[in-house]
Structure formats: C-alpha cells, structure tokens
C-alpha cells in the first residue's frame, strides 16, 4: 500500500520522464549485482540513455553497497547527487538512506524495516519481499538469491518499464542458464504483479521509450583497455592483482584465450604471468620490453609506488613498456574501491632523479580502448615506459558507448635495427642521436651477425652504451632524454577542444568529462555563462593546448584530487599563464558531479 506523504508539496512536483535517478542500497555479497544490472539494462534496451555506478566496499560480504542508476534523455552520464527513487534493502544503512533523500522521494523497502516510521514526507512503498519470494520460488535455499529480483519487478511496474524488456535483460544477463533465468523472471513477475495490485500508480517518475541507445554497447573501462591491449598485439603481460585494476588483466586473459591462440598449435601468442608483487611485474615489463616484446602491466596507486625504481630504470635505460594505472583513492591503501585522479603527478614524474613520462588520459570507453592500443606504439617509438592513467570510475563502472572502431593503423615498432640494417651501418651506437629527435636506434637480444650486441645499464653511459662517469656525457644523456620527451609532443593524442570561443575556459581530463559536459549546459542554461572546453589527453602537453590557454582569460582546471595536480603541472610548464588557472576540485572518493563544477565556478565569479 503506497502511503502518501502527509505534506502535499513533498510529492515531488512535475513528472520526470526519462530523467531521474534510482539508488539501490544493499549489503554486498547479497547478490544484488545481477538485479541492478537488469534494471539498468532494461532502461538501456528501452532506448533511454542510462549509466550505473556501483558504490561498493573494500570487502567481500556484509558491508553496505549502493548502486546508482541515472536515466537521462539528454545523455548526461555523470553522477548526479539527487535521488528520485530509493530502494532500501540494507537494514544497517536504512536509517541513513532514508534520512539523506529529499522530500517526496519514492521509497521502496522491505516491509519489516518499518521505514515509514522514520519520516513522514516520503512516498513510502513497503514490499513484503519474503512473502513474494516464497510464493514465486519453490526452493527455500534460493530465496535469498532471487529476493533482489523482486524489487526489480516492483520498480519496473512503478516507473513503467516494459516487462518484455526486463525479461530479455534477464536472459541476456544469465545467458542461457535456463534454470536461473526462469527463477529470476518469476521473481521479477511476482514483484511486478504485486506492485500492479498493491502499489497504486505514481506518475512522478516515468521511463518512456526512446531510440537513443540503438547499436550501443555497455562496457567498463578495464574491459576496453584489455581489448586495446589485445589488438595492440601485447606479447608479455606481468601483473599482480589490485583493485580496481585486476579486471584489466583478467579480461585480457579471457580475450586472449579466445582470440590470441595460435591456430596451428592452439597455444597462446601472448605470455601472461601473475607475479609475486608489483616490483617483479615492473621488472618483467622492463626486461621483456628490452628483449623486444610488447609488454604491459596494470595496477593502481600502491603498485605504482612500488614500481617507481623500475620505472626509473625503464626511463634511463630506455626500455619500452606500458603501465596502466587504474587510479583509486589514496594516499596509502586509502579507499581501494573508490575513485580518484590522485596519481597524476606520480605518473608524470615517477621515480627519483629528473624523470618525465608520457601519460595518456582516456576520457571515455573508446579512448580506454584506443589509448591502450596507442600506448604500445608510443612505448616502442620512444623506447620508454608509457602510462595509461584511468580511474575506478572509468575502469569498473558500466558505461554505454558507441561500438569501438577498428584500429586500422599498423603497429609502430620504433627504431629497431635487424641484422641486415646493422651490416649497412658503419658505426652504430645504441645511444647515438642520429636523427636529432632524441630517439636512438636499438637492437634486440638474439639478433645474429655479431654487430648488434650492446650493454644496457641504469648507470651512466655514453652513446656507445659504454659505462661512463664523465660529467659531459652524463649531461648529454639526460638532455637527450628531455629532447626525446619533447619530440613525443607531436605523437601523443591532441586535446579535445569545444566551445563557442569565449574567454572563459574549462580544462579537464579523464573521467571528469561527462560532468564537465553537463556543467557547461547548466552554466549556459541556468546562469547564462558560455564556456570553452579543453580536455587534456596526454603528457607531454601539446602545442594546441598552449594556443588554447593563451587564448583564454580564465581557465578552470577541473580535477578529482586535493592538490590540483594537473594544474600544478600546467603552472610549472607555463608560468606565463599560471595566474589564469583556477582549481575546481572534487576529492571525497565519489565521482565528480556537474553541480560541483557549476558551484565552484560560480563561487569564483561571485
């Protein structure tokens, strides 16, 4: 029985069609994953743009989890603070969950929790889950398992989801496992029927068919990175599990087993090894890159800290390697299952001494795929470690995306000399800057002919790779390394630039993109503020970025870290424009919202 909230104004005014947020509060380990995915998928199948964010604990079972679903006809994908439909399944957090919602919010909950006693200004919908489950599912031991499907049914009925789509979403999700499909579909139906009978209409929140998701995929960034690596022909992978990066490699393993098998032998043409720690993983990446493989690892903050020494070796001895950092909230172990952009400076200058690293910052699923693919080209072209810096929000959340375009470009294996070429060369030196671009010619161990052997070391060396402690030779080496880094300016992804061409600019990167897009509309529509937008996609900074900053009076640098790390790099690189930069920061471990950006920009301009 839907108990109407006493105060009338509390029944959230106008109807929200295809533009509202659902939050489901459960306990982790209770199996709500599938239920929530089905709910999200159904909306997706109905052609309505939708994103889902899983706010999960660093724990396997028993701690609070929240799943946020945002449907938005305009296609806004960022997290939004407000909740319009709340589903409370977790007794532990029910009190807080009820307390945090706005008046008029529709609240679906497990009847025995008696949440209607806590507030009077919500649209309560108590559901007798136990009863419904018992009725719909014969086997008691499976009751807990399907219980969550019931709220999917209830919600589906209340917001007008098409049961056909709900059921096909279940089928898709449980792909072929008929028994599971039947059980879950029955549970959904039970919830739906109960709601139809017991929960009187609410017109506040509606999902109505659109055709805005046609042909799209739903994917997470880690899977996209895995695909990028597979198509880049990665041949050596060394890793150590760490949230939120593990699934990059686990997905890669799955893909490789399917698509990287040698037809002749059935064996894999990629070697993937779980190492004993991140130090060893980095060592394998450096060693394999040195020996000519396309090597990679994936990790997160603590792993990068541990890899620092080896990354410095890769930089100075000039060994290619791809390092994917799916950033989580630090410092230290921090919040392993929450998102952050807090490793920007660490990756940019990782290791002791003067070091500068090529970094790529994907901002969406296509770029997670493309940039991981491209990282291997850059690593081999510049004979150096290359970072692909994503974060938990990109890496582990579900995103709708256009399907990926096939990377047509041929691999760039860089300047590698084979036996024949060596024979031509009179006086080869491993570290001789023949082309003046700072990039030298290397050979691979195993190259026959007796001319290509050289000695690699992390200590001082001269152009002929001989040990050297000579000051002038050392300076020449580090100067060349900087020249090499600067050469990469022309090869890394250029920034994405949008806007009418006004004096007010917003600069952001990575997972902040959706929030910025939405914020720019809000600034324009609600506050009459036009903005230009530049999304940084790589280090070193490119000439386009320079021109853009130069052309703006004020540049708001949006980041998901405390210290404004990207702004720091910009101020260091461009002192002449340092004064233009304003920090717009979000770092509470949740994904940034458009409103956060709008509020901070308005505050600056107040």
């Amino acid at each position: 029985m839907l108990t109407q909230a006493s105060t009338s104004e509390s029944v959230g005014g106008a109807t929200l069609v295809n533009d509202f947020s659902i939050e489901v509060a459960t306990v982790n380990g209770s199996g709500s994953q599938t239920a929530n995915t089905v709910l999200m998928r159904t909306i997706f199948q109905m052609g309505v743009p939708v994103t889902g964010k899983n706010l999960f604990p660093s724990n396997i079972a028993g701690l609070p989890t929240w799943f946020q679903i945002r449907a938005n006809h305009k296609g806004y994908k960022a997290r939004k603070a407000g909740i319009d439909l709340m589903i409370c399944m977790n007794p532990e957090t029910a009190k807080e969950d009820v307390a945090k919602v706005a008046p008029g919010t529709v609240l679906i909950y497990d009847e025995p929790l008696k949440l209607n006693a806590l507030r009077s200004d919500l649209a309560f919908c108590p559901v007798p889950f136990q009863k419904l489950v018992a009725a719909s599912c014969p086997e008691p031991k499976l009751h807990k398992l399907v219980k969550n499907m019931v709220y999917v049914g209830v919600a589906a009925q209340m917001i007008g989801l098409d049961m056909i789509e709900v059921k096909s979403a279940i089928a898709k999700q449980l792909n072929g496992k008929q028994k599971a499909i039947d059980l879950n579909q029955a549970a959904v139906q039970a919830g739906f029927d109960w709601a139809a009978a017991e929960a009187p209409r609410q017109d506040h929140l509606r999902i109505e068919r659109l055709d805005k998701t046609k042909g799209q995929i739903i994917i997470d960034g880690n899977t996209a990175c895995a695909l990028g690596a597979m198509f880049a022909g990665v041949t050596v992978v060394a890793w150590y599990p760490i949230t939120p990066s593990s699934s990059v490699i686990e997905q890669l393993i799955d893909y490789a087993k399917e698509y990287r098998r040698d037809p002749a032998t059935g064996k894999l043409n990629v070697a993937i090894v779980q190492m004993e720690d991140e130090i060893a993983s980095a060592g394998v990446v450096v060693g394999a890159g040195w020996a000519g493989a396309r090597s990679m690892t994936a990790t997160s903050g603590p792993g990068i800290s541990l890899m620092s020494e080896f990354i410095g070796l890769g930089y100075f001895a000039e060994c290619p390697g791809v390092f994917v950092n799916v950033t989580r909230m630090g410092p230290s172990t921090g919040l392993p299952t929450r998102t952050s952009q807090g490793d920007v400076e660490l990756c940019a200058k990782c290791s002791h001494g003067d070091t500068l690293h090529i970094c790529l910052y994907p901002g969406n699923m296509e770029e997670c795929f493309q940039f991981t693919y491209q990282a291997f080209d850059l690593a081999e072209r510049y004979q150096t470690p290359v970072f692909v810096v994503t974060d938990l929000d990109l890496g582990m959340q579900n995103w709708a995306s256009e399907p990926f375009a096939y990377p047509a470009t041929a691999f760039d294996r860089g300047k590698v000399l084979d036996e024949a070429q060596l024979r031509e060369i009179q006086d080869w030196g491993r570290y001789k800057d023949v082309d003046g671009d700072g990039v030298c010619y290397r050979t691979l161990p195993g190259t026959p002919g007796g001319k290509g052997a050289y000695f690699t070391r992390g200590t001082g060396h001269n152009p002929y790779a001989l040990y050297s402690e000579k000051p002038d030779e050392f300076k020449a080496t580090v100067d060349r390394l900087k020249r090499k880094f600067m050469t990469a300016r022309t090869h890394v992804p250029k920034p994405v630039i949008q806007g009418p061409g006004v004096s007010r600019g917003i600069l952001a990167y990575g997972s902040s993109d959706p929030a910025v897009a939405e914020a720019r509309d809000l600034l324009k529509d609600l506050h009459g503020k036009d903005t230009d937008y530049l999304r940084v996609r790589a280090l070193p900074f490119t000439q386009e970025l320079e021109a853009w900053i130069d052309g703006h009076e004020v540049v708001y640098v949006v980041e998901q870290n405390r210290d404004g790390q990207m702004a720091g790099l910009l101020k260091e690189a461009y002192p002449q424009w340092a004064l233009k930069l304003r920090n717009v920061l979000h770092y509470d471990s949740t994904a940034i919202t458009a409103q956060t950006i709008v509020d901070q920009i308005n505050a600056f301009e107040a």
Partner: protein
Amino acid sequence: MTTTATAPVPTNKLGLTKQDYVGAKSTLCPGCGHDAITAQIIQAAWEMNLEPHNVAKLSGIGCSSKTPTYFMSQAWGFNSVHGRAAAVCTGAALANRKLLNIVTSGDGDSMSIGMGQLVHMIRRNVPVVYIIEDNGVYGLTKGQFSATADVGSTLKHGDVNEIQPIDPCTLAMELGCGFVARSFSGNPKQLSTILKAALAYEGTALIDVISPCVTFNNHDSSTKSYKNAKDREMPLQELGFIPYYDHEEMELADGQAMEVGLPDGSRLTFRSVGKDFDVTDRLKAMKEIHEAHDRGEFLTGIFHIETGKPVIHDFTHAIDEVLATIPQERVKPGPEVLEACMRELM
C-alpha cells in the same frame, strides 16, 4: 705431414676462439674472487659452444653484478637494479625463449633485497644459470655484512656477525629448484664443470660460488669505538690501498676435503661431495649439507638435479616461437573479432 711453427689458436665447434668469449677489462680489485668466476664462465661458455648473440647476461647491482661486462662482449648485457635481475630475466625469457640466460648476482643482491624475486623465479622455474658470487659482504658499498655471513665472521671494521646465515643452496632445494650446486672461486676445475652442467640444464640452475672479497673481508681491524676513530683512519687508509691478493687455487677429488686460507686470514674447509652422493634425493642432500655446515665444512659440488621439470613456458602455455618478433598479422586480430566482441556487449 708437415708441422707449422706456430700452433693454431684453438677454436670451438662454432669456430670461435676463447678470446671471442671475453669481455671488457675488469675493474674489480686485483685478486677478487669474482674475476676468477668470470674466467670460468668464459671457459665454460666457450667449451659449451654458446652462440654469443643468443646469450643474455643479466645482473643486479654490486661488484658481482658488474661481471657481465667482463665476459662475452658479443652477448646482450643488462646491469639492472639491485636485487631484481630475476624479474628482468623472467621478462627477457618470456619475450625470447631462445635466449640462454646467465645471471650473475651477489649474496646481498640475491639473499637480501632480491630474496622475494629469487624465490619466485625458482618457483616458476625460469630457464637461467643463476650464479651467486658469495663473499658474505656487501663489497660495492664497502663491506657491510650480508645474509650469508657466518656467525662469528668478522669484517675489516671489526664487526662480528651474530645472526644466523641463509644458505642459498638448501633454500633453493627447499623451494624445489631443479639444479643446485656450490663451488669455490679458487677451484676452477670444479667450477667450470658445474657451470657446463648448469648451461646444459633446461630450468633454473642455481650455483652458489664462495668468492672471497679481498678488500673488505679481512681481519685487519681495530676497535671501532669513536674514541679511537682516528685509529680507524689507519686501516681505512690502508683500505684505500688495495693490495694484490694472490688467489690460492685448489683441486678436490670427490669426497675429499681441503682447508683453504682466505684473504681475511680465516680458514675455510671445503669438501666436495663424494661419488656416492645422490643428486636425486633432495631431502637427504639438504640434510647432508646442513650437517656438514654444522661441522664447519662447506660442502661443494652438484647437490641436486631434477630433469624434466616443467618450466615457466609450460605455465604460460605460450607458443614455442620468439614472442618478441611474431609479425603483426599473427597477434593483431582482425576487424571481425572486434565486431564479435562488440556484439557480445550490446
């Protein structure tokens, strides 16, 4: 037949002279045990007809880790970071399984900072001849104790080690290493024999070679109390001067024992394992090594050989070819594969 006046320079099966296996001039202290080991690596590599261009010689950091520079200048060398050659070598092996890997390391490099990497390299049975040039001290950092220093051993500065040592050999055997041996830099015959056997082994072959540090492992010490710090200056300045130490060479018949004087004036008893020694009985061998150590003897020789053990390549299930150089068309799936993946995700 006629005889020529000058004897021809001997060559191996590849037609290479021993000279073809030497490297740059050593910059280690005159008489350093490590140089004696380098000499035997050169000897064994030559006798075993190693193709220099297919050899990867890797190391960490330390005097011992400098030695790859001193042999096989036609091989690919990698003097990496302290204690992590095992990981770098694992990477190289995965990238190019045709390489023959030789790692030279030190007791500090392998038994302290590199312990974790060594243990797991052994566990994965990475194909490599892993040589620990074991002097019980940190040579390159001027003589601190390493984890293999025996209880009671004394350093130049006079410090006495009180902490139980780690034996790389029994440790490796406990971990299931398939080839484990120990020798002495002063026993060239035994060392080269062991090296040749190791070069023929298909997995991880660990060799602990006792290799005296002539500079820091000696007793010429005085009180280190600060009051007498200036006394310390005296040995320090003598330390500044590195005397040439003539390396006492020996040869041991099976089962025979011999006491050897080390540069530090101490005496070390080496006993080579006997003919009857069963290299297939790991646990029995470990017991004998431990018991010998308790008797104050350093057992030398090949302790354990287990052939046919699966190596890292068996665990990765990767193709037998060199991964580093397979052409793009074989490792970059076609557009239809991407489409299939996309369809899965719709």
